[in-house]
């Protein structure tokens, strides 16, 4: 039992890290960036490239991959988002353009690395296992859970207490008013895309490393989960996404352990559906009063 909870927390921390980036862009712009999963995948490949081909240590490789992910976020902003920004019905057109962006990145990864699963060398991260009671977990897993918590708390602090965070919230509340107040809206949106993608990239590297498997389609496994996590947590809410991630991880592990592997995805989406029906705002959803 203790071990299953550890398993769930651990799977949840990756969902949380992935979903936090997803929800940041959603919270500010009310658009879903469906290229997020491709950034997740490309960052894993960037880290793999650094470790495998250039023989870097894992630390610098992670930084490099995070930077690549951030740059991809900026590209998404310039290519897939900004040109469509002033058009009517941005919601739909940006969904399509970000999917196109994701497809392009996947095609590039296929071209460079092929469809088969690539792997990190076995000694990329120090292999050490801890035992607490009957539960076992590795150093890497501990680092990932701690990292996810630190990063999401950091992001929450940034949004809450910094000037940039205030600007982000202002844009989220009312873009036009923010502009009138002299906030550089374009820059705020650009930075949000970069931060969001960098977080997604870190999640990708962690996922690729801990399951030792990097493939062009790896993002598909998490993108729908990520979507259900942000709905579960309350769309646009950062603490909600974190809690939603951990909850989904636990629910998934519990369903696999108790009901069998066939129910893994079914349970995730039943949860999504139930939340949509019963509590459309999600667990931590904003009170949507800003237009009243």
């Amino acid at each position: 039992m203790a071990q299953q909870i550890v398993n769930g927390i651990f799977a949840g921390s990756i969902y949380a890290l992935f979903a936090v980036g997803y929800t940041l862009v959603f919270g500010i712009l009310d658009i879903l960036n469906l290229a997020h999963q491709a950034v997740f995948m490309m960052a894993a490949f960037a880290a793999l490239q650094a470790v495998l081909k250039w023989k870097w240590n894992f630390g610098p490789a992670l930084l490099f991959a995070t930077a690549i992910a951030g740059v991809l976020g900026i590209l998404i902003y310039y290519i897939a988002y900004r040109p469509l920004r002033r058009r009517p019905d941005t919601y739909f057109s940006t969904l399509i353009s970000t999917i196109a962006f994701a497809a392009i990145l996947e095609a590039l990864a296929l071209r460079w690395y092929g469809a088969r699963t690539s792997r990190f060398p076995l000694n990329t991260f120090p292999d050490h296992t801890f035992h607490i009671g009957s539960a076992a977990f590795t150093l890497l897993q501990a680092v990932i859970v701690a990292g996810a918590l630190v990063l999401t708390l950091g992001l929450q602090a940034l949004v809450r207490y910094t000037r940039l965070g205030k600007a982000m919230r202002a844009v989220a509340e009312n873009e036009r008013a923010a502009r009138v107040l002299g906030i550089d809206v374009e820059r705020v949106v650009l930075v949000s895309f970069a931060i969001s993608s960098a977080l997604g990239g870190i999640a990708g590297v962690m996922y690729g490393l801990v399951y030792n498997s990097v493939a062009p389609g790896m993002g598909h496994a998490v993108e729908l989960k990520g979507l259900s996590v942000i709905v579960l947590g309350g769309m646009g809410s950062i603490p909600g996404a974190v809690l939603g991630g951990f909850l989904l991880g636990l629910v998934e592990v519990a369903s696999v352990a108790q009901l069998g592997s066939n129910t893994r995805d079914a349970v995730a989406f039943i949860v999504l559906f139930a939340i949509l029906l019963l509590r459309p705002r999600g667990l931590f959803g904003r009170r949507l009063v800003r237009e009243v």
Partner: protein
Amino acid sequence: MKNIRTVALRTAALGAIVIALAACGSNNNKTANNANKPASAAATQAAPATAASATRAATPAAATTSAAAASAAAATPSGPAKTVKIGAAFSLTGAAAQYGATQKNGAQLAVDEINASNYVPGVKIDLIVDDDASAKDQAINVFQQFINSDKVAAILGPTLSNSALAADPIAQQAKVPVLGVSNTGEGITTIGDYIFRDSLAEADVVPQTVQVSLQKLNYKTAAVMYANDDAFSKAGYNAFKGALDKNNVKIVDTETFSTNDKDFSAQLTNVKNAKPDVIVVSALLDPAVGIATQARKLGLTQPIIGGNGFNSPAFIKNAGDAAEGVIVGAAWNSASDNPLSKKFIQAYQAKYGSPPDQFAAQAYTGVYILAEAMKLANSTDREGIRSGLLKIKDFPTVLGTFNFTPGRDAQHQAVIQIVKNGQFVPLQ
């Protein structure tokens, strides 16, 4: 207030729909990718056209995939050699790409040897390799291409049992003999009387694996794990369950997973709580690696006994230390003292610079079996090859002395091996 909420919900719902659509789209992309796949596909398209127009001169061979085949053809300049086309559907991309690559090498090596040595007098084999992408639909496309446009005399493959179950009926209907060189699942050769295989089924290897490992380890209980969305893994599970029951080994836990899963911690934790003497796993390579490494990280120390999916040097390479002590039954082992096998390893190593695996050995054997069938039947057409295959008896191959069972399945001795110091060695 209502406005924003509905917008948010609408966006989320749209997102879900669009992702679902994209998922469908990506399947199509896969097929499209393969259609565009530059080198080999284009070459195989070009080959038949040239052959038709050049009235069987020595040149068409040059259009085939391998330069080696061309030089072999050039070495025997005169003599109007008859060319017989063999289609090979191997998984060069997708989940089984690891297997497909060595299959292609093994088959090509055999073709080069056969053409150079004039093994079937006056006949040159033209091997057309195409990618089945580890996917059913693509295997069907490739089979149709082979049968209707390339007009091949026989087909090798496809790599996965799953694909074979989908594609073999097409060949059966068109009366084209198929020789599976890696299918180990159930219900393959029962598709029809044109379907053969030279790969020992899991049902043949697994009882031997259980018996030999039982003698060595003397276990009483086992936990069984298998992928329940894959024909090969399920067949392996049925075989293991049957053999374990027969030997009075108690199955204390059964866990399932999906072939595409990456996280097996929930299942392995259940296994850990059940405290079995051994862990039996029926899985393809990728999940096999994941299970072995995650089991060791969770502190499971029991021996792991695996099905054919574990039987690849790639398993040892990818699982590292976690591979040590894993027991696998196999149709072929590189440590075999069969002289044909030694010769094959040498030739393969010389040509490709890496050691062959079982999949290469079976594909290599498959081409020789087809050639032997042509020789026995003294014919190179579809019917002739089929009747020749039925005549094969005690044929010496890399896999050992080879026969077909009355059900057109493979029959030869299996080897039970264990991973020691990063290598498969016979468990003795």
